[in-house]
């Protein structure tokens, strides 16, 4: 489909883009910048309403983007994550100020970039979309100009990200040079023969550096803790979910379209990286004293579990990845909503701020417990459904070692999640005043809590939807 014909299918994205520019324009006239946040939310809702279920898969813009059910799934994921982030930002003093308007504009563009990245089926499009997401992430990390740590983190993020994209670009050039095509399916068709195995594998591994950076896979995770700690809390919440989701989307598209013939080679690599990622994440999380850093390592470990599903990459594995992402998005954003409440009040992110939270604000503490238990994968919460699926993917494929390592990791992870629970319930409060809960926070909390409990108790609709997305 050429560009003009494609535009018809591109309406939601066009609305997002137009909304972004309009918000930029509004920024000149509106004094109360919160209205721009509200406008951004409205744009996201309108966009979500415009997304229609694709009856058939179509390739848009002469082979750059695929509009398929997979894209449809990630559209909703990206829009919801950005919406919750904006809700958190509306109540956050960190992001308030005279630049606040631009901040919401950046998020609208971000939503646009995320959808593009999930839809990209062409090496060039993949590269551009990932870079688009990355550059916006750098900007958002350093958005609070007065905070030197945030600036340092942003620069670190930029340097690390640039190196990784450079390596990825090199990998892409190898693949392009060997196959003569940028289309990932065509690459798969041309590099399928055994003669190209070495080169294809090199290209893939180099590309893994760039994608691994996005999904904070060990050993490319080193930027994550610093960035997550220093970025404004809503941005951290966003970074732990959305860029990872599209990173996984790209990885899945790439592995299943370009390298199915090499599965027996890369499966071992991804499996090893999965075990490494979860172990590094969990072991490092144990000793953290800053909640954002703590959740950063936890999210690295979670990426490790999701990689289990990528390793298998059959129907169970793919459903595992998508289901895990849906439940993880709710749970992690929920946890960050509570983090946001506490740090808005205490002005810091030390774990000690959580001491006795159950006494001064029982509801947020109970919600936080639910989110942490869900992250630990305990039933009947959403996280359990995700765990159940990644474990079944591993067991079905007879990867006993992977399953065992993951089980041990889950037990270790429960230890540090319970550290927070212990602080909230088993120790006395240092501060007495309850944390404030303005309406955007309450809305975000209700939304994420409903998702965490609802998907845990009644996962059937989500699983059915994911199966439909995967064409089963």
């Amino acid at each position: 489909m050429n560009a003009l014909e494609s535009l018809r299918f591109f309406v939601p994205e066009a609305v997002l883009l137009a909304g972004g520019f309009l918000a930029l324009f509004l920024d000149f006239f509106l004094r109360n910048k919160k209205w721009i946040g509200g406008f951004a939310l409205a744009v996201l809702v309108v966009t979500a309403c415009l997304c229609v279920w694709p009856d058939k898969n179509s390739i848009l813009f002469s082979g750059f983007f695929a509009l398929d059910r997979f894209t449809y799934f990630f559209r909703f994921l990206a829009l919801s994550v950005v919406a919750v982030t904006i809700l958190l930002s509306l109540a956050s003093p960190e992001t308030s100020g005279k630049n606040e308007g631009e901040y919401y504009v950046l998020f609208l563009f971000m939503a646009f970039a995320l959808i593009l990245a999930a839809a990209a089926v062409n090496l060039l499009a993949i590269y551009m979309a990932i870079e688009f997401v990355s550059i916006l992430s750098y900007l958002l990390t350093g958005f609070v100009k007065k905070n030197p740590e945030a600036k340092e983190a942003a620069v670190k993020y930029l340097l690390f990200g640039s190196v990784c994209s450079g390596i990825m670009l090199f990998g892409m050039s190898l693949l392009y040079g060997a196959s003569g095509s940028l289309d990932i399916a065509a690459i798969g068709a041309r590099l399928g023969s055994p003669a190209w195995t070495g080169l294809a594998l090199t290209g893939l591994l180099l590309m893994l550096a760039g994608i691994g950076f996005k999904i904070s896979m060990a050993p490319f995770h080193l930027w994550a803790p610093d960035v997550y700690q220093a970025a404004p809390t809503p941005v951290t919440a966003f970074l732990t979910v959305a860029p990872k989701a599209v990173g996984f989307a790209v990885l899945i598209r790439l592995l299943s379209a370009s390298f199915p013939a090499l599965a027996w080679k890369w499966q071992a690599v991804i499996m090893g990286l999965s075990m490494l990622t979860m172990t590094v994440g969990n072991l490092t999380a144990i000793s953290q004293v800053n909640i954002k850093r703590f959740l950063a390592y936890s999210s690295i470990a979670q990426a490790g579990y999701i990689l289990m599903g990528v390793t298998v990459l059959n129907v169970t594995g793919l459903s595992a990845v998508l289901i895990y992402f849906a439940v993880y998005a709710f749970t992690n954003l929920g946890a960050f909503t509570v983090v946001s409440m506490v740090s808005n009040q205490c002005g810091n992110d030390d774990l000690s701020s959580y001491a006795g939270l159950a006494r001064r604000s029982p509801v947020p503490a109970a919600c936080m417990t639910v989110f942490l238990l869900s992250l630990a994968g305990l039933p009947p919460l959403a996280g359990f459904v995700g765990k159940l699926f990644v474990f079944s993917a591993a067991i079905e494929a007879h990867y006993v070692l992977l399953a065992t390592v993951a089980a041990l990791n889950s037990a270790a992870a429960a230890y540090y999640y319970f550290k927070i629970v212990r602080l909230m319930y088993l120790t006395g409060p240092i501060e007495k005043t309850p944390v404030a809960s303005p309406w955007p926070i309450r809305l975000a909390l209700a939304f994420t809590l409903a998702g965490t409990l609802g998907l845990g108790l009644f996962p059937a609709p989500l699983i059915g939807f994911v199966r439909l997305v995967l064409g089963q």
Partner: protein
Amino acid sequence: MSSHILSWITFTPLIGAFLVLLIPKSYKAYVKWVATLTTVITGLFTLKALTLFSLATSKLQMVEKVAWIPQFNVQYFLGTDGVSFPMVFLTALICIVACLASFGIREREKEYYFLYLLLETGMMGSFLALDLVLFYVFWEIVLVPMYFLIGIWGGPRKEYAAIKFFLYTLAGSLFMLLGILALYFGSAQHTFDWLALTQTKFDPALQRIVFLAFFAGFAIKVPAFPFHTWLPDAHVEAPTPISVILAAVLLKMGTYGFLRFSYPILPSAAVWFQPAMAVIALIGIIYGGFVSFAQTDFKKMVAYSSVSHMGFVLLGLAALTGNGFSGAMLQMFSHGIITGGLFLLVGVVYDRAHTRDMGAFGGLGAQMPLYAGLLTFFSLASLGLPGLSGFVSEFLVLLGTYITSKTWAALALIGVILAAAYLLTMIRKVLLGPANPKWNGIAEINLREILTLVPLALLILAVGIYPKIVLDYMTPAVQSMAALFGGTPS
């Protein structure tokens, strides 16, 4: 209502738990009554189920089955039979008793009773669920309230004990989850349905692996040697009513898991692991007995005696005979009521003296004659005095084991002798001997405490004199189990 009786039994406590949360602060005094009423209503539902229970069949009864996650073949599948029903009854009874024993809790009552009732739902669900995923869900639901109940209301080392209990059990149960998934993918029809899985013949190699995975989950819960180290910590630090529940119900979840899942679904592995199970059981019986003997802390002694007594359950299982299975099931029941009672009695004296050091007591028999009588009764039941329930169950286990191996039976007897040794020593130290003037004027056991102990004592006596009142429920299930291993139905 009788059509969904098992759901009512399982979820009435949950409804009660949310009612407790809704009680406003100014009506705080009613919290414990709402909770007690909930446990009593659950008990009434259990009695109703008792009348519906048919003794004639080994089939599942009062079955409820609805698809829960159809894409994964997970069902909401509840049902009961002779293996689970005595446990449900035990749970209902112990929950009422322990709720009455909780009246001494004054701090954060609302949270306490909320978690307490949530725990009851988890335990009931674990005993009634017959879909493996559903079972796992309830099994894990038990962990979380238990963590808080030990961690918030426990003794000086409560936090350590709580997290140790939690991590141990969680690690075990994650392996169990892997085992469950292996069964799912190993069965031709891809199912978690207990009934379908028992009718599936699994490959012996797969059976052994899954048996080991299940073992990790269940043996930690029992706890079997060498996974018992969480138990003394948890028992000692937990508040009295929670120790009672731990000993009376939670430990049974482990042996119930073996009886319900490992043995019927994986019979060839059960035969293959028979010697290993027997060795673990015997180590538990003897080692637990010796360690109990060495304790100076009253509560720790009772805690370790559980290791020894639960060893008998495992031995009864390892025997793979009809009598062995009957003995194991009856021992689960009678250990529940006896040790539950002993923990209550420890709590009674601890509330007054604020020490559990047995050496610090002496001559309490003269100060608290009623208490002394009850303590002696429960101790004698625990050491297996004929005429009380502990004797019948241990005797059946030994009888069942004797057929399989005379050596095992002989070794297990050491445990019986040790039980007499440590329990009588305890009685000598606490009740007899020269009166310690420090305890002059110590208050006698009060009416509420007696009320918690009397039902247990009556049951111990009834089962001891006429064990058929419980055994009749178990017999059909035992016969079908024994038939699985070619044993003679007893």
